[in-house]
C-alpha cells in the first residue's frame, strides 16, 4: 500500500509534465502560431522560455527527489525506525544560495529587455503617436490625425475616427496615446505581447511594432464591467502604403456629404487591405 501512495503522488507530477509537453499541440499555448509578432514580444518570449526551463528543471528535480524518498521509505521494513536529525548547516546554505543565485540571475538578465521596452529603445513619447485609443465601456474608440499631420492632444476638425479598428503600418515601431473614457481598462494585444492598463484621467504612450501584416485581436484585459467581454477589437497591420491609402479613403468617407459619391462602402477599404494582407 505504501508503494501505491508513492506511485500515486508521482503520477500527478508525471501527468503535469506530460500535459505541459502536450500543451502546444493541444492549442493550450500562445494564440495563433505561438510566435510573438513584435520585436519586443520575441524578447519577452525569450525570457518566458528561460524561466520556464529553469522552473521545469527545478520541478522535475524536486519531484524525482520526492519520489525517491517516498519509494525508499515505502520499501523499508515496517519495524525500522526513521532517523531523526536536526538540521544540516551545509545543506541549508546550499539550498538557500543556489536559488538565490538563480533568482539574482533572472533579476539581472531580464533588466535588459525591460530597459529596451521602457527606456532604451523608445522613451515614453519619443515616437510620434499615430492614434489616440480611448477605451470606454465597452468598445475602443480611435482617433487618428489627418494625413501628414501630428496627433494633437485635443481633437482636431480634420481628425479621422474609427471604432474597434486600430490600423497600424507594419515593420516600424508605432506609438498610441492610450486613454480611458470611464473606468480602468487594459489594452491587450496577445500576439504582439503588449498589455497596458488604461487609466481614467491619464494619457499613456504605448509603443509596439508588428513584424508581419495581419489582423491581431485587441481585447480588454481588465474586468471593466458587465460588458467587458464585448471589448473585442482588432489591430490591423498593413504596409505603410496601404495604411496611408486607407487613411486617405477614411478622410473622404468621413467628409461624405451624401452627394460626391465616395463609392466604396464604409468597410471596403478595410476589406481590401485585409485581403491583400492575409
Amino acid at each position, binding site marked *: 500500500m505504501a508503494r501505491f501512495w508513492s506511485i500515486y503522488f508521482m503520477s500527478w507530477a508525471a501527468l503535469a509534465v506530460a500535459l505541459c509537453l502536450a500543451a502546444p499541440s493541444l492549442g493550450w499555448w500562445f494564440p495563433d502560431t505561438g510566435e510573438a509578432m513584435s520585436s519586443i514580444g520575441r524578447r519577452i518570449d525569450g525570457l518566458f522560455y528561460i524561466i520556464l526551463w529553469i522552473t521545469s528543471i527545478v520541478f522535475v528535480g524536486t519531484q524525482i527527489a520526492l519520489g525517491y524518498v517516498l519509494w525508499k521509505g515505502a520499501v523499508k521494513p515496517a519495524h525500522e525506525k526513521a532517523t531523526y536529525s536536526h538540521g544540516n548547516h551545509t545543506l541549508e546554505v546550499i539550498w538557500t544560495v543556489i536559488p538565490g543565485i538563480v533568482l539574482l540571475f533572472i533579476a539581472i538578465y531580464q533588466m535588459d529587455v525591460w530597459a529596451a521596452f521602457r527606456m532604451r529603445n523608445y522613451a515614453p513619447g519619443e515616437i510620434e503617436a499615430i492614434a489616440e485609443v480611448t477605451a470606454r465601456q465597452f468598445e475602443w474608440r480611435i482617433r487618428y490625425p489627418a494625413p501628414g499631420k501630428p496627433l494633437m492632444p485635443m*481633437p482636431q476638425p480634420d481628425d479621422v475616427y474609427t*471604432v474597434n479598428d486600430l490600423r497600424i503600418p507594419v515593420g516600424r515601431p508605432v506609438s498610441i496615446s492610450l486613454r480611458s473614457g470611464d473606468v480602468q481598462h487594459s489594452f491587450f494585444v496577445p500576439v504582439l505581447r503588449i498589455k497596458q492598463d488604461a487609466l481614467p484621467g491619464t494619457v499613456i504612450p504605448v509603443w509596439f511594432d508588428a513584424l508581419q501584416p495581419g489582423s491581431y485581436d485587441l481585447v480588454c484585459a481588465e474586468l471593466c464591467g458587465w460588458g467587458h467581454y464585448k471589448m473585442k477589437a482588432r489591430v490591423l497591420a498593413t504596409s505603410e502604403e496601404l495604411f496611408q491609402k486607407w487613411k486617405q479613403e477614411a478622410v473622404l468617407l468621413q467628409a461624405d456629404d451624401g452627394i460626391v459619391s465616395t463609392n466604396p462602402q464604409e468597410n471596403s477599404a478595410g476589406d481590401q487591405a485585409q485581403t491583400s494582407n492575409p
Partner: protein
Amino acid sequence: MPDSLLKSMPFASFAKTADQPVGCGQLQDSWHLAGLLRPLVWGVMLLLGTAGCTPNPAVEFTPRTSTTLLAPNARQAVEHTLLTHFGTPDNLVVWDRLSVIDFGGAKATVESLDAKASSSAKAVMLVTFDNQSHLAKNLRVGAPVRWVSGAREGIQGDRVAAFDAATRQVSIALEGKTSAPAEESQEETSSSSKPVGEIAAGDALVIDDGGLLAQGRVVYQRNCMHCHGSTGDGKGPTAKYMQPPPRDYRDGIFKFTSTQAAERITRDDLMRILDDGIPGTYMPSFLLMDPTEKKAVIEYVRWLSIRGEMEKRITDDLGDFSTKDLKAEYAQGEAAFQAALKKGEKAEPPASITPAVDTLQKDFAEFFETDYQGVVEDTADFLVSAWERAETPESVITPAKARVPDDAASRERGRLLYLSDKTKCYTCHGAQGRGDGPANFEYWKMPSGDGNYPRPGLHDLWGNLLPARDLTRGIYRGGRRPVDLYRRLYAGIKGTPMPAFGGVTLTDDEIWDLVNYVLSVEFTANGTSLSDVESSIKKLPATDKVQVQETKAEKITEVEPAGSAS
C-alpha cells in the same frame, strides 16, 4: 414536521441519526453516509444556485401594458393574433404577409422524383433552386421543409435527410403531419402522412424556411437581449444600469436613420449602427461580428420591431375596449374610501368594475365578429408598405446640393441661423451649444394628455428625460459625417423633440451652413477664447435684427456677413 419534508431539508439527516435508536446496523450505515454527503451536496447546490446575480430572464414575448389593460377577451384576441403570426422566441412563425422580412430559406422546385430510392418514409428528388442563395450551397441536414404547392402543401414537419450540392439531390424525411386535422378526413391523416407518390415534379418547396430569422434570434439572445429585452422593449436585465436607457423599438421608431421624418429605418442604417455603435451611449460597436450574423440579427430586429408595432397599433385601435380608465377610476375611489376609513368617517367602497368590464367584453365579442380581422389586415398592410417604402431610394434623404464650403463665412451664417427664431436651436441646445437652453428647465406636457411630466426637462417618446445634446463635446450619436448631421437637421431625430427642418423651414444651403457651424462648436468652445464667447453674446440682439430684416425682404439664403461677422 412531516417526514418527507424533513428528508428534503439540508442537515435533516443529522437530526435523523441523532434521534434514531442504534440497533439496525445496515440502516445505521446508510444513514451515516447520507449524513456526510447530504450537507455537502446541498452546499454545492446552494452555491451553484445562488452564484451570479439574478435568475435568467424568461425567453418570451411580453405584452405591452396597454395590451394587458384591454378587456380580457380583447387582450386574448390580440395575444392570439401575435402568437399565430409571430410565434414565440422558441417557436418563430414565418408569416407570408411580411414580405419585407427576409426570413431566409431556399426556395426550390421539384425537378424529378427518384421513385426507386423513395419510400413512404423518405422521398429522394432533384430540385432546382430559385436563386443561388448561400443557403442552397450548404443546406443543413434536419432543416425543415415547407411545401408551397402540390399534394403535401400544408403538411408540416418534413425535414432534409441528406443533401448533395453537386447533384442538387435532396432526400427528405417525410415525418410531417397535416397541421389542421380536419374531422372528415381523419382516416387519411391518422396514417401520419400521405404516400410519397403524391410528390410530383413542379411542386414548390422552401427548405430551411425561417432559417435566417432563427439565426438572428440566436445572435440577438446572445448579444442584444440583455439590454433590449427578448421582446425588444428595452427592458433586458442589464437595462436598469444604463443611462441613456436602451432603445425600445416596439414602436417601429429608431432615432438615427437616413430616411425622411415619417419613414422607418433602413437595413443600411441598422448595419451602420451595428458597425459604429452609438458614441455617448452604451450601444457598442459590433464591427467584428460575422457578416452573416449581422445580417441575421438586423432582420430579426426589424421583425421584432414590426411585431411590436403591430401590437401597438392593434391595441391602440382597440382603445374603446381598454379598462385603463375604469381601473384608474376604481383605484381613485378605493384610495378615497381607505382615506375616509382611516379618518373614521362613513364612506362607501367604490362600485365594482366587473359589470362595466363585462359590457366591454360583450361589445368586443361583437366587434370581433365583424371588424377585428379587418383591423389586423389593415395593420399588416400598413406596416408592410411602411417598411417596404423605407428601403426605396426615395425615402433616403439625399442632399440636393453639395456641402457649402466649410469656411468662416458659412459658419457665421450657420451661427446666426442657430440663434435665430427660425430654427430656435438655442432654446434647447443653449446659446453656446452647451445643451443648456431654457427648454431643459421647463415642464412639458405628456403626449398621452395626462398633464405634465413630473420632472422638468425635455422628454423623448419613450418618456425618458432627454437633455438637449451638448454640441461642445464632439459626440455625434448618429454619426459625424456631414451627411449624418444634414439628415439629423433635415428629418429631425425620430421620437425626440428635435424637429425636422428640411424642405420647409430651411433650404439646403442653410442646413449646410448650420452643419458647418455645429461641427465647429466643439473647437471654438474648447479651444476657446473667452472673447469669442463674449463677442457672440454681445452680437445676440444684433442677430435678431438682422433676421427680422431678412425675413421682411424674403431673402433668407444670403446673410450679409458684414452685418455681424468680424
